[in-house]
Each structure stands twice: as C-alpha cells, then as structure tokens.
C-alpha cells in the first residue's frame, strides 16, 4: 500500500489513431442522445467516415514520421509496423463497410420490438432507423485496432471484448429475417463469451507462470521459470483456443456460418474482413512475442488446425446452398490458408518477415474481396429481402451481367486465380511456408484450394450457365455508397492482382521490424 506510484505516461500521439476512432464513437453516442431523430443519420455519417479518415491519415503521417520502436502506454500497446499496417487496413475496410451500412433498409428500426408486433409496425411507420449502428461500428473498429496492437494480455482481452461486444449487438439488428438475425446474435454472443472466457483463463495461467502480462516479459520468462510448465502449457493452449475461435479456425468454426448468415450483410462484411484481420494480428503477436519460445509445442498443433481448417472449410462449403453460409465457410478456409503463414515463421528474422508480410498482404487482399462480395450480396434481393439461396442466383449473369461478372471476379479472387489479388495473397503465404519448410502443409493448401475452387466455380456456373428462374430475384439499383464499395473492392482486387508490388512493399516494410518486443 505504501510507496509511491510513478505517474504513468501515455503517448497520446502514438495512440491518436485509435483515440480518434473511440472519440468519434463517443461523440456518436452523444449525437444519439441529443440530435433530433431526423437529423441523426445525417450527422452520424460524416462523423463516422471522417473519423476513420482522420485516423487513417494519422497513421500514414506517423508511418512517414517513422515507426515507433517502443511500445506505448507503459508497454501496454505496441504501435509497431505490423500494428500500423493492420490498423490502416482495418480502417480502410471499415470505411468501405460504413458506406454499405449507410444504405437504408439493412437495420431494424426498433430492435427490441417483437417482429410483426404493433411496436414494430409503428417503428416502421415512423421510419425509425437504428442510427446507433454507427457508434457501435466505431466501437467495434476501435476494438479491432486495440486487439492486434495489444502488447499485454489484459489489453488484448479488453480489445477482444470491445471488438466483439458491439458486433454481438450489430448481428441482431437485421431488418429482414429478424428471428434469424437475433438467433445469430445469441449464438455469436454465447459462443464468443465462452471463447473469451477461455482466453481469459489462459491469461490467468500465463500470469501465474510469468507474473506478468506483458508479452515481451512473458517471452523472456519462458524457460526461466522452472517447475510450472503445466501452467504455461494450459495457458498457452487456452489463449490459443480463444484466438482461434475468433479466427474461426476448426474445430472452433461452428459459429461462423450461422453468424455470417444471420447478421445484416454489411455487418457480415465488416466482421468477415475486420475481425479476421484483427484476430490474426493478435494471434501473431501473442504467439510470436509471448510464446515464441514455445513454438516446438504450438507449431504442431497449428499444423493440424490449419489442415483441419482448410479442408473443413472447403469441404463443408461444397454442401452449402446459402450464399452467405458459403462465403462463411470460404472465410473459414481462408483462415486456414492464413494459418499456414503463421506456421511459416521460423527462427530467422528474414523468414519471419516474409511470413508476416505474406500474411499482411493476404489479409488486405482477402479483406477487400470479401467486403466486395458481401456488398454484391446486399444488392440481389427477393421480395423478403436479400436472396440468399443459391438457387435464386441462377441466371444472374443474364439478368445483370455486370453485377454477376463482378461477383464472379470476386469468387475467382477467392479461388486464387492469377491476376486477382487472391492469387498473390495465397502465393505470398505459400511461398513463405515453403521457405519455412512447411511444404506438406502447402500441398494440403493447394489441394484445399482446388476443393474450394469447386464451390466458387459452382456459383459462377449457376450465375452464368443456368437459365434464370422466371420469378428470380431483382437486382436493386445500387446506391452510390454500395456502388462505390463494389467498385473499390473490384478495383483493389484487380490492382492487387496485377500490380501487387506497392502493397507488398508496404507489407514488407511493416513486417521488417517485426513485432515490438
């Protein structure tokens, strides 16, 4: 109790990008509280977009100024190369997702109203909209930024929750198919909370072992403390479970299809891109910085998990008849490919750099493509909302060749066909893995890619080579935002597929310094 507490220092400048996002989120809450209903979304949108933009600019500025080499906020948050790269990516993707979110009609007016009840009708009649979506998204984005930058297991846990909690809510806000949406929210919530409990217990065990939560300190104590290896192993395993859950790696992938399907599609887009990126960032950081000395133990496990994830995702996707579920399984499979990159790390810094930059590039490429794909999904609608069943997509190429073409292009990018971003992403990861000696894994990855290609191609077949149903879904005229999203995603997919060098360079220089220790 006695003794002085040195006043901590907080590098507000380094944390500014994150603080801007959180600040804007808080501002958004105030807008919710004080602005009149009819003005709210008009105020929210600029705040949200602007804050993401400012944050991005700050990151760029900081990048140009020089990447910090020391963790900020008393070692709690590491704003290093990879973190900044991940931040930038998340911000851009979040920006794009917000453009999707802004479209009317995705979110329910009164979430608590029972579907079909008087309250609901009244909310619809009044044109109520859940403008809380914007602050919630900002909070989620802030969490996504905090999670991979956390240099401390406690902060990682807080980041994990700040990221997840708003997403749980957002999942349940779909205007159409309310029950499905609510169910998705509940499943996501229960399983997410379950997994974060695992993460936390793992953290507790590691704390018991190392007497610190600082990743670098944990890394330093590996092997230095004797006799308590059991704590370390249990802790590492449980943290792994928590993180792998967020990634959606097998065998913790069960939530993904359900949640992706039930959530409002723009939110699915945000989750599929942002959450995955953030979770991978955190996974890499925790397992390199803190548990890097333990890689003899976790590497084989990850080996198995990666194989299971890739093959599981790809094979289960084949049986899907729902476009969103299919994309969810595809995201699982991609998680598996990314895990190959995690395993590709080795002892040599050069190898680590190439693996890390490969993963970073893959994340960018996949993020854009997936946002684009979900944006397309929002545009294909039936009377009851988006047309999810694959059979409804038959003949879309005839009905709306441009849209179907773009979607097919995204699918090809998912499949990793050359001249799309997906190819180089996969290539970068595979290459790192081969150099790192994980050739068998790469072969499995190639086989899984081939399997995965099957279901992507199947959708293309359906869209282009089947005749459209008479009462097929209509393709809505996209709003400017949605059109911009699709266009941007397509552009990114092309550009990254043809001239990946600039982004590769960026990823490389981000990965150059590796994680701050």
């Amino acid at each position, binding site marked *: 109790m006695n003794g002085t507490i040195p006043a901590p220092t907080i590098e507000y400048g380094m944390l500014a990008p994150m603080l801007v996002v959180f600040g804007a989120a808080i501002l958004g809450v105030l807008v919710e509280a004080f602005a009149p209903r009819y003005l709210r979304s008009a105020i929210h949108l600029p705040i949200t977009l602007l804050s993401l933009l400012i944050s991005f600019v700050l990151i760029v500025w900081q990048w140009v100024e020089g990447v910090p080499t020391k963790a900020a906020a008393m070692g709690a948050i590491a704003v290093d190369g990879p973190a900044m790269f991940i931040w930038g990516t998340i911000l851009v993707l979040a920006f794009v997702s917000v453009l999707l979110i802004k479209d009317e009609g995705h979110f329910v007016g009164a*979430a*608590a109203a*029972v*579907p079909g009840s008087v309250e609901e009708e009244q909310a619809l009649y009044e044109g109520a909209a859940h403008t809380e979506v914007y602050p919630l998204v900002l909070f989620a984005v802030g969490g996504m930024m905090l999670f991979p930058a956390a240099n401390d297991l*406690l902060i990682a*846990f*807080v980041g994990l*929750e700040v990221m997840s*909690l708003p997403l*749980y*809510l957002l999942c*349940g806000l779909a205007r159409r198919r*309310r*029950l*499905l949406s*609510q*169910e*998705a*929210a*509940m*499943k996501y*919530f*229960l399983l997410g*909370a*379950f997994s*974060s*409990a*695992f993460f*936390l*217990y793992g*953290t*507790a*065990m590691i*704390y*018991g072992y190392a*007497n*610190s*939560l600082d990743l670098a300190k944990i890394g330093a104590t590996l092997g230095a403390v004797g006799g308590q290896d059991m704590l370390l192993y249990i802790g590492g395993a449980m943290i792994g479970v928590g993180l792998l859950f967020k990634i959606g790696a097998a065998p913790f992938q069960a939530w993904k*299809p*359900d949640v992706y*399907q*039930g959530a409002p599609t723009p939110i699915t887009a945000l989750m599929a891109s942002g959450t995955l990126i953030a979770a991978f960032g955190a996974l890499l950081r925790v397992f390199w910085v803190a548990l890097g000395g333990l890689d003899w133990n976790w590497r084989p496990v990850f080996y198995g998990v990666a194989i299971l994830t890739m093959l599981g995702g790809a094979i289960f996707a084949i*049986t*899907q008849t729902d476009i969103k*579920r299919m994309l969810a399984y595809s995201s699982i499979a991609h998680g598996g490919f990314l895990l190959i990159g995690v395993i590709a790390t080795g002892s040599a810094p050069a190898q680590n750099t190439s693996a890390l930059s490969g993963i970073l590039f893959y994340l960018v490429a996949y993020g854009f493509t997936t946002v684009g794909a979900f944006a397309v999904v929002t545009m294909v609608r039936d009377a009851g909302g988006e047309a999810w069943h694959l059979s409804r997509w038959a003949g879309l190429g005839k009905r709306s060749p441009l849209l179907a073409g773009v979607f097919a292009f995204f699918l090809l990018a998912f499949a990793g066909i050359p001249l799309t971003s997906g190819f180089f992403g996969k290539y970068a990861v595979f290459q790192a893995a081969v150099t790192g000696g994980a050739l068998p894994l790469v072969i499995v990855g190639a086989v899984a890619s081939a399997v995965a290609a099957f279901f992507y191609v199947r959708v293309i077949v359906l869209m282009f080579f089947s005749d459209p149903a008479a009462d097929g879904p209509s393709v809505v005229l996209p709003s400017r935002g949605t059109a911009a999203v699709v266009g941007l995603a397509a552009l990114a997919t092309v550009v990254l597929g043809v001239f990946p060098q600039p982004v590769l360079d960026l990823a490389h220089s981000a990965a150059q310094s590796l994680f701050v220790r």
Partner: protein
Amino acid sequence: MTTHYLVLSALLFAIGGVGVLVRRNAIVVFMCVELMLNACNLAFVTFARQNGSLDGQVIAFFVMIVAAAEVVIGLAIIVTIFRTRRSASVDDASLLKH
C-alpha cells in the same frame, strides 16, 4: 495454500464450461459463462497473492468490467429473443441449421 484456490478456480471454470455445453437455457448458459469469468478472477487474485504482485487484482477489476458489459449486452440479446419466441432454450433457436 494457494493451490487450493487454483483448484477451486479450475473447478469453477470446468463447471461453467460443462454448463455452457450441456445446458439448454440461454440464460443459464450465459450464467455459466459468467461463472467461468469469475473463476478466472479467482485465479488472477490467487496468482497475485502467490506472486506477490498487485497486477492480478487490478486485472480482476478489468475483468469485472468486461463481464459487466457482457452482462448488459448478453441480457439485451437474450431478452429480445425471449420476447419474440417466448422461449430461452438454445435448442429452440434452430433456424440457422445447415
């Protein structure tokens, strides 16, 4: 001495975990999750005692907050579902099957 607390915490965690897996009522599942979080807290505080550092206790604070936030959000979701379905059973929520 502290081992007993750790064993207790592990036990609570296990009870919570098993509860999540076998119980069908969403609220009960949720409470089991909270039990797990509190088991973590117990472990943290125990380790703080054992290692002679205060960090563990501070962490427990943070965990409490997170748990509280989780309660708020989780209950909101579950109650909404309950209002639409008049049931909080996880089994009834089965629209999202393959």
